């Protein structure tokens, strides 16, 4: 496998991961010793520092990750901030709507309805004080049950949960 192909594969991997990827995993994947691979990655890092690139590779604890260069933050902000007008991302709104109507409910249930993992959405909704843990389900593993908060009612202008628009009207 030549260096060009390794670099291209690394680009794919760092892109799909979004998160950091340990050098040791990459070394096993390409079957190349860590020192050599590290040299290749360092070369790649230099190339990404060039003017035409908006991303850079950063090293954290012998793991590598893509990150955007700070000088382009203003464009990202201009593009995505208007999308935040709805207050929450589409994924978080979806997660919140399921918890609001199905509460108390578990993460597994939300995942099943959405068809994707909702972990990070749940954390952000907890962080924003829109949902909270309301107990445990009496089932194997005693999974956490989630429900909405007072702050949720205030934000959506509801007096109480019984104020939520009727699902039977929703069903149409």
């Amino acid at each position, binding site marked *: 496998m030549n260096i060009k192909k390794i670099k291209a594969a690394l680009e794919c991997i760092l892109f799909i991961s*979004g998160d950091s990827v340990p050098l040791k995993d990459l070394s096993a994947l390409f079957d190349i010793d860590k020192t050599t691979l590290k040299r290749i990655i360092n070369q790649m890092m230099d190339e990404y520092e060039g003017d035409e690139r908006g991303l850079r590779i950063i090293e954290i604890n012998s793991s590598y990750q893509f990150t955007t260069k700070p000088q382009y933050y203003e464009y990202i902000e201009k593009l995505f901030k208007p999308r935040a007008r709805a207050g929450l991302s589409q994924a978080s709104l979806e997660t919140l709507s399921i918890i609001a*109507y199905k509460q108390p409910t578990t993460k597994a249930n939300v995942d099943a309805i959405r068809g994707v993992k909702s972990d990070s959405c749940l954390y952000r909704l907890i962080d924003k004080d829109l949902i909270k843990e309301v107990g445990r389900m009496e089932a194997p593993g005693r999974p956490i049950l989630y429900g909405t908060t007072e702050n949720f009612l205030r934000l959506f202008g509801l007096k109480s949960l019984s104020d939520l*628009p009727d699902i039977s009207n929703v069903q149409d």
Partner: protein
Amino acid sequence: MPISIKLEVFEGPLDLLFHLIEKAKIDIYDIPIAKITEQYIEYLNLMKSLDIDLASEFLVMAATLLVIKSKMLLPKRPNEEENEEDPRDELVIKLLEYKKFKELSDILGDKYSNNLKSLFKSTELADALIDSYELPNEIPIGLLVEKFQNIFKKSEIHKKIEYKKVYKDNLTIDEKIIEIFKIISSERWTSFEKIITFYDSKLEIIISFLALLELIKNKKICVKQARNFGEILLKKNRVLPNT
């Protein structure tokens, strides 16, 4: 002569009819309707004997074919001969239209599979970024309701999808022979029942049995069965006999 039944699963009566026409290498504009009708009905009977559920459309088509066949047998009135329509016309138009989309779906299917190895990134980073901004003072409840409504619709669709048993496409005896041959080893006796335990369609079991018979006939395997309806044991023949 080796047993060479190839059972295919057809998407519908047009698919089956089209297959019969192709197999017989006949001109789609001049279908020998009596012959094709006979083959079509033969196939339906075979499916029926294998207990395979047939959509009612298959039977409707059988009836249509019989009607066309009888119309063609009627003597033409001499004065009508010129502008009388061929009773096969409507069917030919349908077949041609179906053929066109069948071919297009093959082309599209290739595009889809070629593209399967191109991956897209999740919107997770963008979602996290959007959620990182401060919440407005109020969010209209309508947004939440709309989201739930969409999810609700999707789950309704889930309920509507019928999960029917799908039979493996193009199950052939040749493939089964190779499969069985792979499973059994030359040293040990293997139970035929064990091989078919994992098959959940009757069709697949039947084909496996036919494959077994073929293997015995060609002296590729030894078989023993202690008593009637008892366990069938098989193993590979170590030496290939001179034939």
